[in-house]
């Protein structure tokens, strides 16, 4: 380590072996040490006044010893995080075809609105008379969500999609309990997101998989056979995780309701039908909406999200606290009380910062623009499907909805796997599509171009995939290229087995500059 915070040996030794440069850097691709390897006592990135001179009231609990945090100046901190940022792919830099994740454009107007004084800085426990505007944001967004889904109620507090699933199942459980009906099973297709069974288990349910038909939809006969008096609910994603609209959805709803169970719809793929189809017209009882998918709030490298849940008349009495109601002096909050509410899911009132962004997105699009969102996202996905169906292997016949599913039949006997194919896309400047999900097809590749892309952009993407598919099929020397990919990234393929076998989950004092891999360093 040197004082400028640049890694020297032995990382640099390993780096230079790989890159041929003295520093390990490759032009604009900068190596960057950990914060903890560049700190120095006596340096800070903030200027704070002296603390008031008082006799402390810490009850003898003053911290003994140091925390160990590094001291850095502001320019050091900025350079560190700017360099880190440059190691990331992002929507702003390129098409991000991650199926089921809806990586659409994140408008900067939304960011600006979320930071307005009076919105970004208000405290959740201010007297309601001083936050009427904040409550209006929540109430207005709730109105849009109810109208777009055709549902009578919405719970706003869930923090993300999986939290929304939990909210929906809690409401279902409360409704069943209220009628003295104890049920133990949840039905979910094998193609479901992993969060569905995980959520069901959190609520004490066992999960029973429903098989799919050859054309990728729920098998109604199998569903009928599985339904019974102990089934609490079905959890069904629509459009489903194969990118297909469940065309028998109304029949599914009727069958589920006839068995006294509830219909939970996973709304992760609502982007395909927003403004075009109201789930409430299809017989569902509840559905979460990922504001960070359909309504463009940024994914932020893994959150925060927001997962409001729309509810039918049969579930709406059980909504979690808090919720906004219209009172005689304006809007107010119900934060607890003797209602049928199943309780509280988190601190305070929900992901307000995400509400503001989502509402700004909705107001910008309007009813006409949102319908266009669904149409263009479906159009682009079908265009990808049509453009590649002769060379890659579509899992199901079209039309698809907002994402196109391929499997690895076109790679059969080439020596190239789905993973290799995905990694080769990285060297071409693309984030890979979702791979190996859904689990119901072999070597899945799920492509979601979203409505944000221009036709030129989609064409270039399609041509790149076509070129890669041709190379893979031609085989020969090309196979090694796929297996070695990516080669042009800040890091090549990483050893995940080693990470899991002996986990190193934090930096520790004394590990400065220690050889990470002795063999490689030597």
């Amino acid at each position, binding site marked *: 380590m040197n004082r400028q915070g640049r890694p020297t040996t032995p990382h640099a030794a390993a780096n230079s072996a*790989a890159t041929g440069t003295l520093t390990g850097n490759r032009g604009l691709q900068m190596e960057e040490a950990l914060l903890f390897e560049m700190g120095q006592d006596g340096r800070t990135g903030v200027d704070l006044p002296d603390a008031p001179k008082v006799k402390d009231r810490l009850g003898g609990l003053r*911290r003994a010893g140091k925390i160990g945090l590094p001291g850095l100046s502001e320019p050091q901190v900025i350079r560190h995080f700017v360099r880190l940022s440059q190691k990331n792919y992002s929507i702003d830099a390129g098409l991000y075809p991650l199926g089921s994740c809806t990586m659409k454009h994140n408008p900067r107007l939304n960011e600006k609105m979320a930071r307005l004084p009076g919105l970004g800085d208000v405290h959740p426990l201010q007297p309601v008379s001083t936050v009427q505007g904040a409550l209006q944001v929540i109430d207005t967004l709730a109105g849009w969500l109810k109208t777009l889904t055709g549902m009578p109620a919405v719970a706003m507090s869930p923090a993300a999609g999986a939290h929304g699933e939990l909210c929906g199942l809690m409401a279902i459980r409360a409704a069943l309990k209220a009628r003295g009906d104890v049920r133990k099973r949840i039905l979910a297709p094998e193609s479901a997101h992993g969060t569905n069974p995980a959520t069901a288990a959190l609520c004490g349910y066992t999960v029973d998989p429903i098989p799919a038909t050859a054309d990728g939809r729920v098998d109604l006969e199998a569903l009928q056979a599985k339904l019974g008096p102990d089934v609490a609910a079905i959890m069904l994603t629509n459009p489903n995780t194969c990118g297909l609209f469940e065309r028998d959805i109304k029949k599914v709803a009727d069958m589920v309701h006839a068995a006294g169970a509830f219909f939970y719809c996973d709304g992760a793929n609502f982007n395909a039908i927003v403004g075009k189809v109201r789930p409430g017209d299809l017989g569902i009882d509840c559905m979460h909406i990922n504001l960070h998918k359909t309504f463009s709030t940024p994914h932020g490298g893994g959150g925060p999200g927001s997962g409001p849940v729309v509810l039918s008349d049969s579930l709406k009495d059980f909504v979690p606290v808090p919720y906004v109601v219209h009172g005689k002096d304006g809007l107010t909050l119900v934060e607890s009380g003797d209602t049928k509410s199943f309780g509280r899911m988190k601190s305070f009132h929900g992901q307000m910062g995400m509400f503001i962004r989502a509402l700004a997105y909705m107001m910008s699009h309007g009813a006409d623009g949102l319908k266009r969102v669904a149409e263009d996202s479906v159009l682009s996905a079908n265009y990808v499907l049509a453009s590649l169906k002769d060379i890659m292997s579509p899992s199901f016949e079209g039309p698809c909805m907002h994402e196109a599913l391929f499997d690895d039949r076109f790679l059969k006997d080439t020596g190239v796997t789905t993973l290799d194919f995905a990694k080769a896309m990285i060297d071409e400047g693309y984030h890979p599509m979702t791979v190996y999900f859904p689990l119901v097809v072999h070597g899945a590749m799920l492509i979601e171009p979203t409505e944000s892309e221009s036709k030129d952009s989609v064409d270039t993407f399609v041509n790149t995939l076509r070129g890669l598919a041709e190379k893979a099929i031609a085989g020969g020397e090309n196979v090694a290229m796929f297996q070695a990919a990516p080669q042009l990234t800040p890091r090549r393929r990483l050893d995940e087995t080693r990470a899991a076998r002996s986990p190193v989950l934090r930096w520790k004092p004394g590990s400065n500059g220690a050889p990470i891999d002795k063999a490689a360093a030597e």
Partner: protein
Amino acid sequence: MRYLGLTEADRRDMLETIGVSSIDALFKDVPAGALNPRLDLPPHQGELEVERAFAAMAKKNVSPMDVPFFLGAGAYRHHIPAAVDHLIQRSEFLTSYTPYQPEISQGTLQYLFEFQTQVSMITGMEVANASMYDGATSAAEAVLMAQRITKRSKAVLSGGLHPHYRDTVATLMDQTDQPHVAAPVDLAGNEDLSTLIDDQTACVVVQNPNVFGHLRDLTSLAKACQAKGALLVVAVTEITSLGLITPPGAMGADIVVAEGQSIGVPLSFGGPYVGLFATREKYVRQMPGRLCGETVDQEGRRGFVLTLSAREQHIRREKATSNICTNSGLCALAFTIHMSLLGEAGLTRLAEINHGKAVQLAEKLAEMKGVAVVPQAFYNEFAITLPKPAAGVVEKLVEKKILGGVPASRLFPGDKSLENVLLIAVTETNTEGDMDKLVAALKEVL
């Protein structure tokens, strides 16, 4: 529409390639009558119009920027350095997904590793995860984790635990009819939870400083837990406190859950925030949430990946340790950047200032007739008792353009014993002038 990339000509070309005559033909699987409903919503608008609408809503709120402000109770107003918001808005952080492709996500992965390290350090624990939704959901997940580790079901919840945390834990436990014992409300700060721990107890959840501000040494409680084979879960709602006070890890905590909002994350009316979750290394495979780990790439260079994912829902499905997927990535980044700027010296100084100012205000309030400061030992927040209901007092202070604290009745509705209790938080953002205004206004109101 400014956010859409296709022209009418593009759409026609694309339909032709697909081989259908209209976009609606692509929606042929939608049941008859359900397609293209009439929606009673306004049409699209330009940036200017949307900005006007939001500005109008923002104006209806009283901004903490404009008035003396003393609210806390789980969310705190702190100054956020300008660099934090600048950096988190970089495209490569803001508009990237969860780092499932590590070769092109090293930026996110490295800051998560740094975040995990910072959280471990300040809590005095061995390992931390890559974030949860918020402090309350972290607490609920901690209880489930303690149940998995101890193979016991009961949770004991301190009477000083923030009611939102208590209720979030209870709601989750109710789903599987797990028993939980909520100790009586502990305004005096002298509860003894050891009598509630038995051989069915999975964990005790206690907040420090607690919701009324009491700062307590938890060492003996940790021992009592250990003696009965239960885990001690410590919740921290004001994370800057750990710049000054003994961390939960040093008092014997097994799991530390915290609200990280105070470092880098704006109040934003209650969310999004960032849940911190730290524990002992031996429990790491029972942890919820994502973990980032160090490894090497095929050329031997240090790199980072998401790891131990056999705990997680996308691999493990119904056997996962949690259903959490999206967490609080960008808020964790804000936390990491702000903490980097502070460093050891800055965090310590910040905490000294918070405590010093709180002591100053507590002394001024204690001199007032009819007012008593409840906790002896506290950090930057304390309960006071008033001669009349606190909710009414707060409303009167609003008329005088002061946001004067959180009435305990807001958090403990219906509890008559807390009707006259007001929770007051003081941070580096409060000036002496603010404090004098609060004291003067209270004198008029009481």
